[in-house]
């Protein structure tokens, strides 16, 4: 579904990505871990062109998103993104947050968008919050709503940028549970996270990034029990 070819990204003189080659197939749950500064967030943000690659190609469902002629807005409708800081729209209610994009982009009528939103809210047990404003909700609630806001667009892939890093520990669980549910339903996911437990349970493949490159990757069992790259061994020793 996503093919990344020789992706590099430099911010000024700082080379953050030094040549990534990777393919992500439908149904995969790819988890990306690594030390800070390794470029994992940048890599993720390149996938929906929130960051413009310095060089290299990214093909999404057959379209080269790095080509300026491509209609990136249309393609982004098929990619859902979840941010560390939720980024809910504070001036809109929860319901409006979820229905804004589908209605504005004329993908659904207002009624069907609201019905869809209601169903999604029901799924996470927050139906009574439909008319509330984001600032009235806890972090965990906000992030779960951010996730279903992205889901309301019926994306083909969901990108998660450290979705639980800004949450109080007691709320991390409810978000991971939602993500687990999505994974079980077959959603293609790319997740940047520090949550090793989640990675072990949900990932089909784990990538270890360091210094702008993918240094090792493996399915979870092998990844955690038999790391080969010395940097990865180091990293795991510290975090596990």
């Amino acid at each position, binding site marked *: 579904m996503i093919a990344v070819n020789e992706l590099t990204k430099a911010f000024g003189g700082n080379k953050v990505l030094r040549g990534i080659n990777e393919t992500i197939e439908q149904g995969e749950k790819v988890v990306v871990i690594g030390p800070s500064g390794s470029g994992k967030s940048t890599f993720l943000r390149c996938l*929906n062109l*929130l960051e413009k690659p310095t060089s290299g190609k990214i093909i999404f469902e057959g379209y080269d998103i790095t080509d300026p002629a491509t209609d990136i*807005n*249309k393609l*982004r*409708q098929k*990619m*859902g*993104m979840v*941010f560390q*800081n939720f*980024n*809910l*729209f*504070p*001036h809109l209610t929860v319901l409006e947050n979820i229905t*804004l*994009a589908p209605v*504005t*982009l004329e993908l659904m009528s207002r009624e069907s968008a609201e019905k869809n939103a209601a169903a999604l809210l029901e799924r996470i047990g927050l139906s009574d919050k439909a008319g509330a404003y984001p*600032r*009235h909700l806890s972090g965990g609630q906000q992030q779960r709503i*951010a996730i279903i*806001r*992205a889901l309301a*667009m019926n994306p083909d892939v969901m990108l998660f940028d450290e979705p639980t890093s800004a949450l109080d520990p007691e709320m991390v669980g409810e978000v991971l549970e939602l993500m687990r549910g999505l994974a079980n339903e077959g959603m293609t996911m790319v997740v940047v996270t520090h949550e090793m437990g989640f990675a072990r349970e949900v990932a089909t493949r784990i990538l270890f990034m360091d210094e702008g490159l993918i240094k090792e990757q493996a399915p979870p069992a092998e990844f955690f029990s038999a790391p080969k790259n010395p940097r990865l061994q180091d990293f795991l020793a510290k975090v596990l």
Partner: protein
Amino acid sequence: MQFVDNFLTTLYKTVLAENRWRFYLEGIGNTLMMTVGASLIGIVLGILIAMIKTHHNNSGKMRFLNWLCNVYTTVIRGTPVLVQLLIIYYMIFSSASSSAAPYIAALAFGLNSGAYVSETIRGGIQSVDKGQTEAGRSLGLNQSQTMRLIVLPQAVKNILPALFNEMIMLLKETSVAGWIQVVDITRAGDIVRSRMWSFSPLLVSAVIYLVLVVALTSVQRMIERRLAASDRS
């Protein structure tokens, strides 16, 4: 008692005699119309300029429009509003009838205000967290939809106090409209003064301005308090 007597007589002569209060009423009407009109024009213009400059900053496009905006703001900020008013009324709208003068003045003040307000709005847009734009774009909304539906509403809320301040400043700035014979509050005082040959009408004008500014300021404070409260709750 003599003092009070004098005061009341003067007050009577200034305001009530020969229906002189009618001048003040006309003055208040024109001043308020110009203030509100100029504020609205200024905000619309300010948003336009702010968007062009922000877009150019982000994407490098719209070079000509951006240059045009810069020339415009430089000229407006570099000349007194009175001179701008005179040029607009006597040179640009030279054939307009004199009864259009208050509206032309409102336009002139609005064009002036826009140049300053654009900076405020640009700051307001800048102050909206980048993550908001990223979230909007990630959902597939394009630049203008994201700006219109997500960024601008939040920016306006941030800069509402500054916009109110600008309106209060405009209220006082319109006092030069008398130069093109618009009967605003100041000119009303002038006209009564010319019939009375004392300066007390000017005091009446000053008091009217004061009352209006204090009223507007307290409305502004009320709005600020409401916004702060809703943010906290």
